[in-house]
């Protein structure tokens, strides 16, 4: 008879890959002449429970994706996802981190090329929803900074902020699919690329569309660049970039969590 490690390893194979042969020998066979379940059927209860609850977790984490492809297709797709990328942590609130790359390779979803980016947006939304809270920041603190030291400032944006870009208008798609009724709304794919900041100030996640330069600037700040070095990089690539306007936009929307000076 197998030890515990092998029993669990074989049980895992039975659940994820329907390879029951090794585990069935370990499970007590009931007297089937009085009816009831065979060993295979008992294993199926566990397999179904695992798949149903994990597919439900994915449907919760990707509600717009679910609306876009329909419940039935989503169920099929999610089942394949669970098999290919089962969770490696008991925290299911952000389960599905590999959904975008999974969809890129999922042939059956090929007619909807923007699905992967919608999934990316939904995952980042979850990251922001569950991400660190920000303490709140008093803008007066920035006004006190000696103007000569301004370029050494490392500005910290909200700690739950996520950034993404897509060649598709994924925000329009996402907004149109917030309810079942909206799912029939047509989105003009010709509206082209979008750049987004996803963040949470109190309890509500917000999504802000950005122009390409602001998106790049937010990215530099997120990477811990000083204002001075961010400005140098920005003016090289985006000659029309206006630092003052960009900072005003950030302050007006309360996106600052704090700042420090480069050492």
């Amino acid at each position, binding site marked *: 008879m197998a030890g515990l490690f092998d029993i*669990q*390893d074989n049980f895992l194979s039975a659940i994820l890959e329907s390879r029951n042969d090794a585990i069935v020998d*370990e499970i007590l066979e009931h007297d089937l002449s009085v*009816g*009831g379940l065979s060993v295979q059927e008992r294993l199926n209860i566990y397999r179904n429970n695992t798949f149903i609850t994990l597919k439900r977790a994915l449907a919760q984490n990707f509600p717009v994706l679910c609306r876009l492809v329909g419940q039935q297709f989503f169920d099929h797709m999610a089942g394949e996802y669970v098999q290919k990328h089962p969770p490696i942590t008991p925290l299911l609130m952000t389960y599905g981190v590999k959904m975008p790359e999974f969809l890129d390779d999922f042939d059956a979803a090929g007619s909807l090329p923007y699905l992967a980016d919608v999934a990316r947006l939904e995952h980042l939304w979850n990251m922001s929803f569950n*991400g660190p809270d920000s303490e709140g920041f008093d803008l007066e603190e920035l006004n006190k900074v000696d103007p000569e030291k301004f370029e050494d400032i490392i500005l910290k944006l909200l700690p739950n902020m996520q950034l993404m870009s897509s060649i598709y208008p994924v925000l329009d798609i996402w907004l149109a699919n917030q309810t079942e009724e909206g799912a029939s709304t047509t989105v003009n794919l010709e509206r082209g690329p979008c750049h987004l900041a996803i963040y949470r100030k109190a309890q509500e996640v917000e999504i802000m569309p950005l122009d390409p330069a602001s998106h790049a600037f937010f990215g530099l700040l997120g990477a811990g660049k000083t204002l001075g070095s961010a400005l140098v990089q920005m003016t090289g690539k985006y000659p029309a970039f206006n630092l003052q306007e960009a900072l005003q936009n950030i302050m007006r929307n309360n996106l600052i969590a704090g700042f420090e000076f480069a050492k």
Partner: protein
Amino acid sequence: MGNNNFDPIPTNAGIGLKPQHYEEILSLGPDASPKIGWFEVHTENYMGAGGPPHYYLEKIRQDYPLSMHGVGLSLGTADGLNLDHLRGVKNVVDRYQPALVSEHISWSIANGVYLNDLIPLPYTAETLQITCAHIDQIQNFLGRQILVENPSSYLLFKSSNMEEPDFINEILGNTGCGLLLDVNNVYVSCQNHGWDARDYISRLKPETVGEIHLAGHSVKEWRGQSLRIDDHGSNVCNEVWALYDYTLSLMGPKPTLIEWDNNIPALMTLRQEAERANTLLNRDQCAKNSG
């Protein structure tokens, strides 16, 4: 407000906290009748860094005693505990200071994969040693006692050479942890495996039981035989209420949780289930006081 922050779980009925009910609980306040004695949460649901789950739990924690019930430590895993997860549990336990912390006598992780289910263990000396070592490790790391819950199951392993209540008693004796006695699980497993539920309960030691769970289950028919599925999606059935009544008659009153995790009903339904448990608890409380 806030005066019962670190109180132990009272010997009355609590209910499982669900996001659907956050706002209603806050607007009711802790004195609304029928009174909610305490709340239990799934530990893992509060292990994100921030956001609404913490916002609401912080507020509700100020008014009610709290129990944290984990589903992810996988006590019976052969290849060792997930230490990242254990650290996460410690963080959230340190933050909310729950009166009770519990886990399950089962496994859910193999080769690092989390199956999101509570799978039964073979009851052998090897499993006992592994499970006890993990419970010791957890209790040492958290610096406190935990409770472990008896499982529900749909299959048994050939290699088991101990009966479930004996296996549980060995764990409790070896580790000093307490028992979260899930009366619905006892009923479900006994029905599914042809065991005697009253005998099962009578073999447990009343002083080890720190909490009781009550939940609903469903029944499926297969070729003339019924199988009970522990799905926490309905009212507690009459047979389980009767077994609970029997349990209290042996053990005296114990903090009792109404668990309802699927098809979540209106808060009032949970409060009414809790009231039904309170009626039985109060009767036993009176009997204990007068006897």
